[in-house]
């Protein structure tokens, strides 16, 4: 296959294919066409791609059998792709209805990385996990850099400095990584999640579990949390208020796939925190867990700094790209034959669930529903 790697839009510093993964693709008899400077912002030079066997080009789209992207490309990218070709990446199909229409129009087979089922078998393609790892890690670094305090405890000739109290709300992949990173830095860490089984996982990282309502049925069969009732949300906020108030740093990561992020930290709760405290809202891309969060901005509310970064994984662009590319290649293995030609097996659960458009139709049932299309036939 001819694999095209366009530059990502401004604001996205990751790249879908790295020089190291180019090597692998070439081994698997693909040829890789990389747009000039596509990897620059992630720390990969054009020369490294060439060394790995890629061709540099100013326009990788028209010739490509498969185009690999990180974030959802602007619709014009889809328009310039060859008809019948394949697009793989985070496509954000619920938000990007216009992109999806173009893809269907151009009979492009589009796979959304975020739609790959999170089964044991698909773990190596799980880009949501790999990027959440980066997000959780960097969120704590941001918090540490923004906090006017030491994270670790220090007993010095200039007095004893107590450790920072850090609270993680939502302990999925990103939350757990945040816990681990904060613990490494010496913070005193507590965490909370609505799914009861997470308690053990939090404790397995040496953090304290915060007693607040858990929902036995919160974990759907998929392992994701469900949306909770307003009543539950209120109870959650009540129980968390005291813990939040005495925390110096709060990192929120609670998300519900396909729905806006749950509101865990209300405006009053923020106002209850000490000035100088910091909140990093990792859930900002889906609206944020904090009422004060303005996605993409850092605001200071009554002395409390509230950050809602949208590009967290992109701030660890080098390694995040490496992991993303690995996930992508692992998925490619599912849709290519031995000789490197495309081979789509829609009986394969992973392939069929990840597919958004194919052969001119929007295939993904939930996306169809979101776009107001009827049941697929």
């Amino acid at each position, binding site marked *: 296959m001819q694999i095209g790697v366009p530059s990502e839009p401004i604001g996205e510093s990751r790249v879908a294919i790295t020089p190291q993964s180019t090597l692998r693709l070439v081994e698997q008899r693909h040829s890789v066409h990389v747009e000039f400077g596509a990897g620059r912002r992630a720390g990969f030079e054009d020369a490294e791609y060439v060394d790995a066997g890629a061709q540099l080009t100013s326009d990788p789209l028209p010739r490509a059998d498969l185009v690999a992207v990180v974030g959802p490309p602007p619709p014009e990218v889809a328009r310039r792709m060859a008809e019948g070709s394949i697009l793989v990446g985070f496509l954000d199909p619920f938000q990007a209805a216009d992109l999806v229409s173009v893809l269907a129009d151009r009979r492009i087979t589009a796979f959304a990385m975020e739609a790959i089922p999170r089964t*044991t*078998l698909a*773990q*190596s393609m799980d880009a949501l*996990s*790999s990027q959440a*790892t980066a997000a959780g890690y960097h969120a704590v670094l941001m918090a540490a850099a923004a906090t006017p305090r030491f994270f670790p405890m220090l007993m010095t000739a200039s007095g004893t400095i107590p450790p920072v109290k850090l609270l993680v709300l939502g302990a999925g*992949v990103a939350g*757990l*990584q945040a816990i*681990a990173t904060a*613990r*490494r830095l010496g913070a005193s860490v507590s965490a909370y999640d609505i799914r009861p089984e997470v308690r*053990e*996982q939090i*404790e*397995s*990282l*040496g953090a304290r579990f915060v007693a607040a309502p858990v929902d036995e049925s919160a974990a759907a069969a998929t392992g994701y949390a469900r949306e909770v009732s307003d009543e539950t949300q209120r109870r959650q906020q009540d129980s968390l208020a005291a813990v939040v108030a005495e925390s110096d740093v709060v990192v929120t990561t609670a998300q519900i796939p396909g729905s806006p992020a749950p509101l865990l930290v209300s405006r009053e709760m923020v106002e209850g925190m000490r000035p100088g405290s910091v909140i990093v809202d990792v859930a900002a891309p889906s609206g944020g867990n904090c009422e004060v969060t303005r996605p993409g901005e850092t605001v200071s509310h009554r002395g409390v700094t509230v950050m809602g970064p949208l590009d967290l994984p992109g701030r660890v662009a080098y390694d995040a790209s490496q992991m993303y590319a690995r996930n992508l290649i692992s998925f490619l293995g599912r849709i290519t034959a031995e000789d490197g030609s495309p081979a789509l097996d829609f009986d394969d659960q992973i392939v069929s669930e990840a597919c958004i458009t194919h052969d001119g139709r929007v295939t993904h049932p939930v996306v169809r529903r979101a776009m107001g299309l009827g049941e697929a036939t």
Partner: protein
Amino acid sequence: MTALLYLASAVAFIVGLRRLGAPSTARSGNRIAAVGMLAAIVITLVSQGILNWGIVLGGLGLGAVLGGWAALRVQMTSMPQMVAIFNGLGGIASALVAATEVVELGLVSMPAETSVSIFVSTLIGAITFSGSFMAFAKLQGILPGRPLTYPGQKLLNALIVIGIVAVAIWATVAEEPAGYWIVAGLSLLLGVMGVLPIGGADMPVVISLLNSFSGLAAAAAGFVIESNPLIIGGALVGAAGLILTFQMTEAMNRSLGNVLFAGFGTEGGGAATGPSDRPVKRATAEDAAITLGYADTVMIVPGYGLAVAQAQHATRELAEALEERGTTVHYAIHPVAGRMPGHMNVLLAEADVPYEQLLDLEQADPQFPQTDVVLILGANDVVNPSARDDPSSAIYGMPILNVDRAGTVIVVKRSLSSGFAGIDNPLFYDDKTLMFFADAKEALEQTVSALKSI
């Protein structure tokens, strides 16, 4: 002079037994004891004025051939059965020595103590004989391994005991040799009846106890023929065997009474049954320590259980202790071990495990065939061979660490319950797998201290 030579062989037994108790000296201990035995035999042949050389040498020759042949042919897995047989024969030999005395001298005008010695020697020797052969039959599968019980069993056994005592007193008082033979017969019966209600899995304990008995029988025979070396050797083994029996029941978390009289025993001992009712091999901290301590290369496979137990520090400690002994230790980190990406890295970095010792799946997997021992700490799914072998498995196709290609596998977890994927793990029932059921941290701490004493 003879007496002092005998004393020397007794010393050889003492030294030999002592050395048998530690792995590094056990082999030499056994050999020292064997030399002592050879010396005792030679001294006896030279000093006792043997008359019937044909009988003596014939017996020696026959016994040596049979014993040697059996010992060299037996499968490693059938060792306990073999020991049972040898032990039974040793017991009956002591009874026969007493019997010879009775045949030669009768019970006429015998001092009370000699008479008591004769009956004790016969009683214990015969019980040892028939009991040991029962144990053999249970272990070999000739008899069913489960406890054989019936109503009134304990009462019947008590009656046999009373009968033996009564007949023995009568025989002594009435100076009636026939009574002797009745006692011998009842004793044989008692051995059979006593072992019946004990389960197959408890047989090693029974053999150990009967081993102690055979020592006592020898000592009793020593009182009969007034021979100090017999008394010393017999008392030694009697005492050592008893201590050993207690240690064995202790290792099984049972009491001796419970083993002998509780009428169960299919569980415990060398085997336990899992949810799938297949047997697994259990190991203790000492077993783990010895298996690890004598390995050249060890691969540690951490999993979520290590994190739950917060056993990262204890793990590094064990690894250091092994390295000090000259063992090469590496860690095989499966990409999805734990519950978050890099979970194991966080923990092991906290415990200061050098990065160079961490191998990822691609690096670790080719190592297993050359690895002596794999130590699995609270990992489950990531070492589940079904992912490789069983197309019907929910995780079929997931890359795993092929730990079953290594020499021995020790799995540390609290039970046979499943991991994240909720599926059973055939590795646990593998022949080369030892299951060490415990919290990972406690298990490791115990193993480290056990390692110090081997």
